[in-house]
């Protein structure tokens, strides 16, 4: 799975991590290039923080190797790995002022005072926390603490930044703001970052490269677009995207000259969708189609688009879009249509299915077929 890079800033090979007999990470292989923004995403307890702690050297690894900037890190302590880390709880030193929090690392390393002050001033300006420098963490709001934690990482000017869910303690609005700010920061610094989150939207917006994990196993590595359009298995398909991809059981069959998929319906005759890709599929498949690939019939026409009538169960307006729910193959399927639609519950309505963007999965293994 690992892609070979010329000059990786971080390279993890065959990493295993056990706690006693408990296997937490299994054969993880990840590499990123200088300037990459790698996001580790997955459900709670899948081992994201553990992987980050392994990269930082805060947890010993059981087997495999980690290299940062081409240097093997196996026996190197956290302080010598040239990294900086922002923690979920921010982990600000409670009895120190903001200024001391930011400069503590330099002080420990024996950087002289003039240099410390200069760097502090620079970072404080960059993050706009100058008025807060004399305060203690207890006297700051959540967002301000977050900034200070970022500041502590920024002064280090490291090869690699590590973030462990830095935004999960903020309210929704602030989270979106800080997300944008982190993205800007990444561009300005052109730094390499590894960022942990369980929020798939955060992953999509920030990453240049995403690692989707489940139960300590890497499910897929790719760009946000790859992960979104070509999920490697049912787990990734379901996990990434909101609302989630529709995953509907169906039968692939030869249909006259071409091939088609048959999806059972409770309320009408089976839905038949033509797609010649079905030629290479086993009979039982799961069709994965994103809500936005099922749309209003009158608006879109073109190659790969197929129109079919379906019974609308529920209509959920959400401003710009309206989500329409219908029953297909025993599943609740979501379609994303125009905000001002005339869909109404209990009526038949034509929908366009964009078969060019459909993913197929093996129901037994869960793996992608096309």
């Amino acid at each position: 799975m690992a892609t070979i890079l010329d000059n990786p800033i971080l390279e993890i090979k065959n990493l295993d991590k056990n706690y006693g007999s408990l296997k937490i990470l299994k054969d993880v292989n990840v590499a990123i290039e200088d300037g990459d923004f790698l996001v580790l995403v997955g459900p709670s307890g899948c081992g994201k923080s553990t992987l980050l702690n392994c990269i930082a050297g805060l947890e010993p690894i059981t087997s495999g190797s980690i290299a940062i900037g081409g240097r093997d890190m196996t026996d190197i302590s956290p302080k010598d790995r040239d990294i900086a880390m922002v923690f979920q709880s921010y982990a600000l030193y409670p009895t120190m002022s903001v200024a001391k929090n930011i400069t503590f690392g330099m002080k420990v390393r024996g950087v002289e005072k003039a240099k410390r002050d200069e760097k502090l001033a620079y970072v404080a300006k960059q993050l706009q926390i100058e008025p807060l420098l004399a305060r203690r963490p207890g006297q700051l709001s959540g967002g301000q603490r977050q900034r200070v934690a970022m500041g502590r990482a920024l002064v280090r000017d490291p090869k690699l930044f590590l973030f462990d869910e830095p935004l999960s303690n903020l309210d929704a609005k602030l989270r979106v703001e800080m997300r944008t700010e982190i993205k800007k920061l990444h561009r300005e610094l052109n730094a390499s970052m590894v960022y942990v989150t369980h929020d798939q939207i955060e992953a999509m917006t920030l990453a240049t490269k995403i690692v989707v994990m489940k139960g300590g196993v890497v499910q897929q590595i790719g760009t946000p677009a790859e992960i979104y359009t070509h999920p490697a298995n049912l787990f990734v398909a379901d996990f990434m995207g909101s609302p989630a991809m529709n995953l509907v059981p169906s039968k692939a069959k030869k249909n006259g000259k071409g091939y088609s998929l048959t999806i059972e319906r409770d309320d009408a005759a089976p839905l038949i969708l033509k797609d010649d890709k079905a030629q290479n599929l086993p009979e039982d498949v799961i069709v994965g189609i994103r809500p936005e690939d099922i749309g209003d019939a009158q608006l879109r026409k073109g190659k790969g688009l197929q129109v079919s009538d379906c019974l609308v169960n529920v209509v959920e307006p959400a401003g710009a879009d309206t989500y329409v729910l219908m029953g297909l193959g025993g599943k609740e399927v979501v379609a994303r249509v125009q905000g001002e639609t005339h869909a109404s519950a209990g009526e038949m309505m034509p929908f366009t299915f964009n078969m060019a963007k459909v993913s197929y999965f093996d129901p037994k293994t869960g793996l992608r077929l096309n």
Partner: protein
Amino acid sequence: MTDNSTYAPSSRQWQTIALRFGLYAILLLFALYYLMPLFVMITTSLKSLDEIRTGSLIALPRDVTFEAWRVAWSGACTGIKCEGLSPYFWNSVQLAVPAVVISTMIGALNGYVIAQWRFKGANIIFSLMLFGCFIPFQVVLLPMAKMLGLLNIAGTIPGLIFVHVIYGIGFTTLFFRNYYVSISQELVKAAKIDGAGFFRIFWSIFLPLSLPIIVVTVIWQFTQIWNDFLFGVSFSQAGTQPVTVALNNIVNSTTGVKAYNVDMAAAIIAGLPTLLVYIFAGKYFIRGLTAGSVKG
């Protein structure tokens, strides 16, 4: 109807007042009950022996005299010597201060290691230390005597310090461990990445956080050590006895007339330091005791 509705709340109000009154009366009664002995001790210590013999126990002194206090401090006889409590009081100070400081420091370090550097077997070691808190004093007397002999510090003040430090570590470790265990482990991780080592993290980050629990531990240890009688009487010699042992000797070794006023003054002097510690640091004590447990 209207009469009734206006009457009802006022009756309820009256009830509340009565309840309040009853409550305060009971509290006052309890307070008096607890303060009575102190009152008797103080008044008796300020009376002359004649007045004690002729007057009532709870009467205020007619002529206030501090003679008994002077005798208790520097003249009363403990066995053959008649120097009062003062030399023993200083023994106790020399004993309690280092013992409190050392046991608190060790407890803080132990708690820090057990709570924040979860090494293998940390929980077992902690359980064993907890167990140490519940070993009755009498059980350790003989082995400890042997130990002090081997270390060649039997009968000395350093020997007593040693005993109190050993016996106190279980408690001090418990206090600090419970306080530190509620602090996020990410603090240590952040400091490690910042480049700080074991002691630097302790000194720069954990110790400054620990004031409430230090106060609790110091009060606890000071009270225990200052008031200790059993270790004091078992492991000291003529010149190294702590104040509690000397007090016992003054009260028990007087021949002839019992100088109640001197006994009372001596008892107050012996108890004064712990009393003062509670008065000045008591509110931190309550705060610190709950601080560690609330977050848990």
